[in-house]
């Protein structure tokens, strides 16, 4: 079982992940229509697109991030941990060094452990916000919780595996499966914002950069 989930299934899930995301991006770009979107897409829009992305990748850079400081911290902690911990985890790096001969800078296990707890804190915050804030509650569906669960499952099981709670080998297999499930789910669910965030932001940035004032006015200040 371990051999299968840590072998072929890794290839399959990474394959679906990369191909799926590529397909999503291509489909997005192909579905753009200058006349229906009413944006004369051209290279002239690139500065607007870059600005639109950068302003939202940096905490407190955009007005909306500044207006919602608590949520901003919560969501940035959530996303940074979600990306940094698995990518820079020593154990993962050893595995792909052994399999593919690639590895990079790593976090110490102690740091990763704390970041995982920080991630759990962010998850709890996001869930509580969904329950407590009436606007978010009205919008929230079961699907939103499922998405959080898919993203959090590798961390919960990873934390258990690292601390060797319960039956180690079983937990480890579940952990690997959870990670693979997340990779596979990304192109097919809302998690596709992994790439579509950039597509959508770039599109609106171009819209403002080309049509809505970018050409004559001062352009949008996010």
């Amino acid at each position, binding site marked *: 079982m*371990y051999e299968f989930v840590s072998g072929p299934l890794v290839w399959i899930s990474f394959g679906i992940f990369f191909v799926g995301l590529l397909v999503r991006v291509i489909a997005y770009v192909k579905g753009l229509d200058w006349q229906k979107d009413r944006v004369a897409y051209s290279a002239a829009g690139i500065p607007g697109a870059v600005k639109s992305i950068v302003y939202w990748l940096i905490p407190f850079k955009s007005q909306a991030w500044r207006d919602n400081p608590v949520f901003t911290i919560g969501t940035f902690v959530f996303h940074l941990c979600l990306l940094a911990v698995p990518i820079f985890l*020593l*154990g993962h790096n*050893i595995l792909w*060094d*052994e399999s593919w001969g690639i590895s990079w800078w790593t976090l*110490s*296990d*102690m740091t990763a452990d704390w970041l995982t707890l920080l991630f759990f804190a962010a998850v709890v915050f996001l869930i509580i916000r969904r329950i407590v804030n009436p606007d978010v509650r009205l919008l929230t569906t079961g699907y939103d919780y499922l998405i959080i669960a898919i993203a959090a499952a590798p961390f919960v099981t990873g934390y258990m*595996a*690292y*601390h*060797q709670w319960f039956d*180690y*080998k079983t937990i*480890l297999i579940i952990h690997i499966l959870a990670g693979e499930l997340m990779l596979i789910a990304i192109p097919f669910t809302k998690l596709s914002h992994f790439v579509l965030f950039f597509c959508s932001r770039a599109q609106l940035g171009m819209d403002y950069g080309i049509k809505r004032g970018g050409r004559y006015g001062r352009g949008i200040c996010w």
Partner: protein
Amino acid sequence: MKRKSVALVMTVACVLVFALAYAQDDIQSLEHDVFADRQRPAATFSHELHADTAEIDCLECHHAYENGENVWDDSMETDCTSCHKLDADGKTMSAMKAFHTNCKGCHTKEGKGPVTCGECHPRKE
């Protein structure tokens, strides 16, 4: 009831294993000084289990190459970390990589022995 008895059997087994291990004065773990700032507990390793019980050839692990041939014999250096340091040095692998490659490589190839992190680096005593 079933769980209780399983736990009992496991405890007895553990005690027996450890008692046996101590009695034999065998190497029990790869506790090397080069890993000053270790990220995980030292890997468990029973020399006896590998050399005597499994009858694995010494040269599977110990090595000293001359003209591409492993000429190691038991009069030569036995401590892995006298060559394999914390960081890789030229063609010499880092200690961690040497152990991982050697142990996991063999376990995988033979389909025997642990290959996951926690099985070699257990937290529980």
